[in-house]
């Protein structure tokens, strides 16, 4: 294991945009000179779609998974077969992030049923008796900032027993009044979700108030489409029986990788929603849902 292959991108945060140049160095370190049969670099971008077993059935989910959609692929040879001298060798490289045709480079996104991922792989083929070396690193792609100005479209909400849907016996419900507002439902992804919430009154003690960030992924396939909502994260904003009448801040940072600008394509959709969840002391749960539109500016 004398030789070590490494990839270093020029940008520390590994974030790139379409049209930019992905630059970096291949770093080879070894005590002695390393014999090799060529070093190559591959840059790839894929959308992986997976059908959830819930919407199409177990077997379909297993077999019928949609083929990955390739977004970008390019390959270059960094070094011809030969020898790399001992010590540390750095070989610089550059990839233009250009797509062919009418393809678009979607934003990096790690979800459950939709994954958009960009990788850079470096391979070093080596003669017999020596293992080929390979190193992969992921880099992030952010879509071009939106041109038009974002309308924040704030929303005020009031939660009372009367506003609830899906209630079996409305009469059993305790009385409560919760008022609040979100500063924006059209959110800039780099800015936190903010707002305020006031428990005006509540008959039952509150145990916890949480913000649940949910992704809604839709995959189209031959049989139709599958739409699934899963939780990304759950942030508690109040614990215990908070004092009434005092505004509690709503604040949530959108996690990187797991969120992206709201995406709508012919094959799949990625959307986000936030739930304000109020848990009462008797573990009764009240959820108020707000669809969000994330964008990048």
């Amino acid at each position, binding site marked *: 294991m004398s030789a070590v292959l490494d990839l270093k991108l020029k940008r520390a945060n590994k974030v790139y945009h379409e049209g930019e140049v992905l630059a970096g160095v291949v770093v080879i370190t070894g005590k002695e000179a390393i014999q090799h049969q060529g070093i190559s670099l591959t840059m790839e971008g894929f959308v992986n779609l997976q059908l959830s077993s819930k919407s199409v059935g177990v077997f379909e989910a297993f077999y019928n998974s949609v083929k990955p959609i390739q977004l970008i692929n390019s390959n270059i040879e960094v070094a011809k077969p030969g020898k790399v001298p001992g010590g540390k060798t750095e070989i610089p490289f550059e990839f233009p992030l250009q797509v062919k045709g009418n393809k678009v480079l979607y934003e990096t996104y*790690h979800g459950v049923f939709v994954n958009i991922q960009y990788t850079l792989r470096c391979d070093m083929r080596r003669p017999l008796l020596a293992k080929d070396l390979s190193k992969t690193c992921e880099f992030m792609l952010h879509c071009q900032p939106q041109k038009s100005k974002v309308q924040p479209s704030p929303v005020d909400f009031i939660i009372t027993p009367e506003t609830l849907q899906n209630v079996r016996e409305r009469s059993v419900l305790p009385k409560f009044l919760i008022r609040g507002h979100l500063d924006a439902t059209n959110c800039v992804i780099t800015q*936190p979700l903010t707002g305020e919430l006031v428990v005006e009154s509540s008959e039952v003690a509150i145990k916890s108030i949480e913000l649940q960030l949910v992704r809604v992924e839709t995959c189209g396939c031959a049989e139709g489409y599958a739409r699934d909502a899963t939780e990304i994260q759950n942030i*508690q904003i109040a614990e215990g029986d*908070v004092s009434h009448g005092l505004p509690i801040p709503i604040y949530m940072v959108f*996690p*990187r990788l797991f969120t992206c600008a709201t995406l709508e394509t012919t094959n799949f959709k990625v959307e986000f929603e936030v739930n304000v969840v109020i848990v009462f002391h008797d573990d009764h749960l009240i959820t108020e849902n707000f669809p969000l539109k994330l964008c990048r500016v």
Partner: protein
Amino acid sequence: MVSVPWHSRVRHYEAELRSCRAAVASVDFGDYHPLKPITVLDSRSRRGGRKGSTSSSSSSSSSVAPDPLSSLLEGTDPLSLFAAAAEAAEAPTLPHSASAMELGRRRREREEEVGLDFEPWAAKRGEILARFTTTEKLSINLFMGSDKSKASSPSSAVSEKVRTRLEELDDLEEGSQREMMNLSQQDYVNRIEDLNQSLKEAWSSDQKVKALKIVIQCSKLLSDTSVIQFYPSKFVLITDILDTFGQLVYDRIWSMCSDPHSLPDTFSAEDVNDTAKETCLNWFFKIASIRELIPRLYVEAAILKCNRFLNNSGIQETVPRLTAMVRGIGDPLVAVYARAYLCRVGMEVTPHLKDSLNKNFFDLLASFRQIHGDAVQNQLVLQRVEVPVYLTLYSPAIHWILQCVAYRASDVLLTEMMERCKKLGNNVCVCVCVCVCFFTHSALLLNSVMWAFRAEFVAARATDFISMIKDCDETGFPKHLLFGSLGRSLACADPPESERLPILNEAWKVITKVRNAQDYITCAEIWVEFTCRHFTKREVNTVLADIIKHMTPDRAFEDAYTELHSVMMKILTYFHNFSVLFSMEKFLPFLDMFQKDSVRVEVCKSIMEVFIKHQQESTRDPVILNALLHVCKTMHDSVNALTVEDEKRSVSLLINGFIRMVSFGRDFEQQLSFCVEARATFCNLEPVIIQLIHTVNQLAIETRRVMGGSHSRKTAAFVRACAAYCFITIPSISNIFSRLHLYLLSGKVALANQCLSQADAFMKAAVSVLPEVPRTIVVEGKQRSSESFLLEFISSFLSTLLVVPDHPEQGVLYLVRGLLNMVQDYTWEDSSDAKVRVYISALPLLAAMSQESYLYTILNVDSNETLYGGDPKFVAEISRLCETLIGQVLDHLKTLGREEGVHRQGSLAFSLFSCLLAHADLRNNKLNQLAVNLWNLSHKNGQCDTRISVRTLEHIKSQAQHSELSHLSDMLLRLSLQSRA
């Protein structure tokens, strides 16, 4: 035995004195004075100053000529200019800073922002830990990794379920899912310390995620309020971990930035490289995704300082947001401590960011009604904690927050805070049902307000405070504690003149109603200071009466000695006039409350110390004397066989101080009878007895001075009484040298007062005591030979004997003879010349006695010169005595020559020679020959100091110039200096 007939030299003391006086030399007070500033006028030195750094000549130049260096630069030197510029540049930036090596510097800078008058957290820490303890069993619940969303693993192509499963596996590997029950408090503290340790280990072994997990789990413990009495201590322990974590993260990012060269102390976000920023951002993203509110809040607060790496306004934006976030915490106790932590971190990182501190405080006020919510009340019932106890749990946090808020705050703000507090109180009046609850909050709050606010502020509004406290309800926070706080503030700052009496009246009305003796005395102790400071003895007396009334039942004072002592100290600090002090009716009864001996003695000592320090002039006030005599007697009586030496010394010192301050003016007899009484009272303390003897001797001398040297019959009787007092007191002293010196001194005093027989008795007593002197005595804990002390005493004694007239019924010179006999019989150390030295020193006395008029005499006392009138028989007697003495000395010299004592022989011979030279009539051939022989003997063995010899010869030469001493020049020829062969 060689016998040399003695002939004393005739002395003319006055002429000798005249010739010895130094000639008056007139000093010219012209231009020169050594202390006058040196004026440098030489232009060359100025040039030197410009050129080099070694211009010491210019450094001493005075203001007359301007310092060449500074004049050159017109007062501003470039270095200080740079320094000033740098300071100016630094000023607007945050206090910051970081790595461990910068610690010292950082501390200094922080002090610049937060002055030394700000009590640091470290000071509170120990106090809280000591105060909030529990005997209940505690438990730690650490579910490492059960929290799914805490770390957003980037490899999440796998489905969520799988990821969770994997994480659980990880956790099992770490073995970190555990719950520890039934821990004692000490175990708990140890566990937390273990966690702190494992945090550091995890960090150093690069397991950053594990470190974060530990921190999250720890801060999660803060949301648990079971065993609520322990909560403040738990807070302290866990925030220690958080602090460690914050510092670790900060240091790591700092070190990432300092790759090529380390960051300047006052760096801005632009100086930070991308990698460091990315790492820092990563931390914040990770923390932002912590599920629970409390850990998220605490951990983010812990790394608040790291915001500086990201952008320059980060901290200013984050602190208010975190402040608002606390509102989400339902439990008021947890919330208040979270605020305290926030204030603490905020104070450290951005002390000038006052707004969020204030917001914290006002939020706190708003959340107070929570205390009376069902949740809290139920919990209290469950844990069987009473409301007052529960409320005290808040005090450390509220103290801290208020300290931060009130630190260098303006009066306007403080007034606003007061108003807000009051408003809570007023609401109360409106709504009776909420009344009880609100009263208690404001009570709790008031207590803290007074601790943290500047005393002047409180003092100015004392009446307001009093009325607020009076309105408060008794059930929550006990009023006496509130009054205690108020009193403490008022002790430091003065309220307006007109309000003082009403304040005291109001306050004392409440205090006097406090039932519990311990509570009462803690509060009363504080208010005594206020009373002493502003009022007269009348009020203080009333207060003392009240204290006595409260503390006497059931001997409650026994448990409150420290407080009572402190009351006493406060009174003593403000009342220095002891006649006023003792005229307070209740002062002595108050003193009587100290019934435990050790405490009583301590109190007495304090009283005496104050008396000695502040009593300016001596007193004869019977009230003071009686009282202090009583006090001193108490101290004296505490001395017993087991008392250590130091204690005795300090007590004696205090009593002596008292005795010195007693003076009855012209009423000497009264003074003497006081001394008699004191002797009876303080018989166990030798230093006091000695002091008394000195006092009485002084009294006798004073009498003599008043009478102008000649006593009337009455005064003569009085001074005799003084002598008698001394005579019978001295034998009770055990230290033999003290006794000797006192005999001698008292003898002199008696002589001066023409009490001849008394003087005689003293002298005789001294002589008779001499044989008892032991050969070694203990000086400062070491065994020392007493010889030198004895020689010293004998010399002094001999010089006194010159003026002591012979007793008519005894033989000639019987005191001298007696002394010499004693010296002869005394068992000297074997190899010592002391005896001979005494003999040699007796020679000058005898020579002086044979003069026609003596060197000194005592007014109105006839010495031997008058008694004998230079009778030849008397002179012959003296000569015979001298002969014998010289014979003894010569014999001794002979013995020394035989033994190994050549050196001693030489020096003895030389001193005898000096004695002969000065006191013997060397015109006599035999004496002359003896002197020459002694000179030769002293020089025989080369043991003599040549310099002394040379100077002696010079002296003889100069003496020989006087006509009556011309014979010395002949002798001079016969004295040869030993050649340095």
